[in-house]
């Protein structure tokens, strides 16, 4: 077995880091859009809005029930054949779209559970002091649901950061795509992929640190 080429690995880091912004941008955009969509879906499910409720169930069922890679291929290679205006879709857009739809389906269910989990007595107290349904949702239910949902949502964000590596299959040169190209040039596959693995790992660890701080803040009111 050859000795690990550490110098190559060290030299590879700055090359790969240049593609980190694209990876993070796709993850952040996907997460932001997924959050908005998931909140909407969750509210539809909680209020059982007629018509939309059924459509939401179907949406969640499909995007949870099929692999993310299949969805990405469907958007990037498949849809432009049926919808002419999508011929301009690029790999980054297709990835963000896929991540948004896929993860919003999962997140909608955890947000819904968090909202439903807020005790009915909180709603009654808010109504008794004259608050409207909108006010009690905004001021009482959602803040309490957020505290419950954050750990799960952060978990999905971590998963989403790693899932951006699938963009490589759509020809996007992000962190994973860049690594693949470098490895193909140097033939040092083990070094290249262990390096990129460590980079992903460090990003996720950084995020986990941020999550712990966020949770401490959200739990402040509940400390004895």
């Amino acid at each position, binding site marked *: 077995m050859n000795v690990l080429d550490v110098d190559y690995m060290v030299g590879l880091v700055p090359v790969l880091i240049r593609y980190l912004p694209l990876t993070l941008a796709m993850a952040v955009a996907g997460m932001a859009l997924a959050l908005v969509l998931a909140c909407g879906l969750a509210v539809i499910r909680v209020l059982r809005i007629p018509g939309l409720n059924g459509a939401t169930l179907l949406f969640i069922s499909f995007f949870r029930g099929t692999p993310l890679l299949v969805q990405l291929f469907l958007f990037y290679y498949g849809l432009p054949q049926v919808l002419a205006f999508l011929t301009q879709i690029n790999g980054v857009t297709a990835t963000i779209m896929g991540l948004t739809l896929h993860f919003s389906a999962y997140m909608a269910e955890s947000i819904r559970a968090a909202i439903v989990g807020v005790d009915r*007595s*909180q709603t*009654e*107290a*808010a*109504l*008794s*002091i*004259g*608050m*409207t349904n909108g*006010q009690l949702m905004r*001021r*009482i239910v959602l*803040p*309490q649901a957020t*505290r419950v949902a954050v750990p799960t949502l952060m978990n999905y964000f971590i998963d989403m950061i790693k899932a951006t590596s699938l963009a490589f299959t759509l020809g996007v040169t992000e962190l994973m795509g860049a690594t693949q190209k470098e490895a193909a040039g140097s033939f040092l596959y083990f070094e290249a992929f262990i390096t990129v693995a460590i980079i992903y790992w460090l990003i996720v660890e950084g995020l986990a640190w941020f999550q712990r701080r966020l949770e401490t803040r959200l739990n*402040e*009111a*509940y*400390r*004895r």
Partner: protein
Amino acid sequence: MNEQATTAANADDALMVEMRGLNKWFGDFHVLREIYLEVERGERIVICGPSGSGKSTLIRCINHLEEFQKGDLSVGGLPMTQDVKRIEQIRRRVGMVFQHFNLFPHLTVLENCCLSPIWVQKKPRKEAEAQAMNYLERVQIAEQALKYPGQLSGGQQQRVAIARSLCMHPEVMLFDEPTSALDPEMIKEVLDVMVELAHEGMTMLCVTHEMGFAKTVADRVIFMDQGQIIEENAPEAFFNDPQSERTQLFLSQILGH
């Protein structure tokens, strides 16, 4: 405009709470049967009865936390309807204190008290906070204003809950077993606040088994069983000379030990 006109027309002469033939069902279960009740402004009413008799449900109809299916209810001359605006209008006149306090755990004591003044009555934050501090002082808990509910004892939380209600200047206060979830040594601090409120002339409907409180402040004691008002009388007569057998049995059970 409209609201002001209605209020002015009914302010003084209207009954604070009026129920005419109120009926409520939970599915097949007939919880409230033909309830007639008139509460004058400034009256203090204690409602007692065995568990499941409908006493909590009765007062929860007044601020529409429960719907009733038949009969009429009005609060300060305003008839209760299905209209959301009307329900909100009535709720702003009615304060409620719950058995389990129901404070908002993610907000400080002060923020709990300022919610309604700021978001419902649209008062400036400074004014709302000053007023909230004033009420917190009256229930003797002002020094805890910046703590969270979870950091307070049960008795303290219930006093905050009373202050939170008072902050919206209700015309009538509903108490739903306010001391039932408290340790014995904390019951008195809450009752003291309620007695003081009664002496200040607040209209009060209290579901409670604190018979000492009933004797001290109530103008009338109402006994309910199986969804009906069985008996109502001034406290003296109610306790010394209960008319119905069920009232006698109930009193012997709660006073007998």
